[in-house]
């Protein structure tokens, strides 16, 4: 089971969280154009390997936690505040 280190609450089980998707996408400027908004809403990198993502601690402090997790092994590398730029290990597994 994933053990997620919430910056506010400490290490908690996955069962307390709701996954909220890819945290690497950012909302474009309002006048960025259709292509950018299309990508923002629909296109995902979907890597096999390290992935920066949101987990909502809805069974705890109800804050959003940024997590760097490996989608092939379920290993968690780092967690942090939403504003944190978390380090992402470079090695990516083969597809």
């Amino acid at each position, binding site marked *: 089971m*994933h053990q997620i280190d919430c910056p506010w609450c400490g290490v908690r089980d996955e069962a307390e969280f709701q*996954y909220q998707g890819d945290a690497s996408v950012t909302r474009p400027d309002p006048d960025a154009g*259709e292509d950018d908004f299309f990508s923002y809403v*629909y296109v995902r990198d*979907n890597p096999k390997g390290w992935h920066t*993502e949101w987990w909502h601690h809805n069974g705890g402090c109800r804050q959003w936690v940024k997590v760097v997790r490996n989608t092939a092994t*379920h290993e968690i590398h780092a967690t942090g505040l939403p504003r944190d730029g978390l380090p992402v290990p470079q090695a990516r597994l083969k597809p």
Partner: protein
Amino acid sequence: MRYSAFSILWQGLKGHSGWPRMWRDPVPKDHYDVIIIGGGGHGLATAYYLAKEHGVTNIAVIEKGWIGGGNVGRNTTIVRSNYMLPANTHFYEKSMQLWEGLEQDLNFNVMVSQRGIINLFHSDPQRDAMARRGNAMRLAGVDAEMLTPAQLKKRVPILDFDNARFPIRGGLTQPRGGTVRHDAVAWGYARGADMRGVDIIQNCEVQDIRIEGGRAVGVETSKGFISADKVAMAVAGHTSAVAKMAGIELPVESHVLQAFVSEGIKPLIDTVVTFGAGHFYISQSDKGGLVYGGDLDGYNSYAQRGNMPMMEHVMAGGMAIMPTLGRVRLLRHWGGIMDMSFDGSPFICKTGIGGLYLNGGWCYGGFKATPASGWCYAHTIAKDEPHKLNAAFTIERFREGRMLDEKGVGPNPWIQ
């Protein structure tokens, strides 16, 4: 070799020593008319229908692992066509019709069992929603019937009708739905394709798609470069990774879905039942094991295994409609990687690259679609244009605002 009652009798007398292998193990040729990436159910069915319906036989199906080792062997074997949106209803009904004739067509016992599927409902609004779905199905020529609690009690007496939180108020049934032996589907299509000259190349990984002048011209594999007039992807679970080889970015995320089988018990449930107040579906295999599953784990994953919280959630769903499950021991469980598209519907389409085709985005419903997916994909590849049954399953539908969001949950794959 044609299978028949006589061939079984004859082989029995000879001690079953004369059965030939069901498909060859060929060395890849330098060139094919069509290369299909992925030897799962969809890829094999595509090869079979390309050969049978369109006379294209110079085909290679290239599989990274072995035939039947991916999602075609990892599902809960349910087949049905109880959809509501027109594009989905007609497509899945085509699939249902192909299932109904598949064993004769393939000369292979895939154990199609039309034991029916029953979707339970637990409240008045849910009854209305089910009636609406049933009506949409009947308007499209699909069979659907509403069952009263009294009818249900006769059909599936083991259910907990008076559960305090989720009392069962009835069900919507599709009597033609049921189950099919999943592994046999892969083997049957592989044998049928091989008999028509298709090369099934196992343990060969596609590492890149070669594109020249805006056209796919072949694939780099672990066994060298193989050229082709047309390249077709059928790798649901890993569609993002393979499409990326051609520079295509997609509205797809990979998620893990778990499935479970209990110890073998005497006949308990002779149909497929789904819980309406949670996500839980159950049937019983011919070996006696209860086969069941529920929601996605709910986070991006390429690991073919899930985690305990979702196991507990699935079991809780099962206990809510069948408390007797608590006395049955779990024998096996596993995970498969789902190609979750951003509206819950699949892709069978051309891409922006000439001679390159896409089949993917099957979410957790790919198995039931196998025959129609192969049938429509074969048409799309052979004619270089979609059949009307898969014309809506494009990548462009997201940009054009023509999403096929059967569940109405929006672009959040993890809650589909």
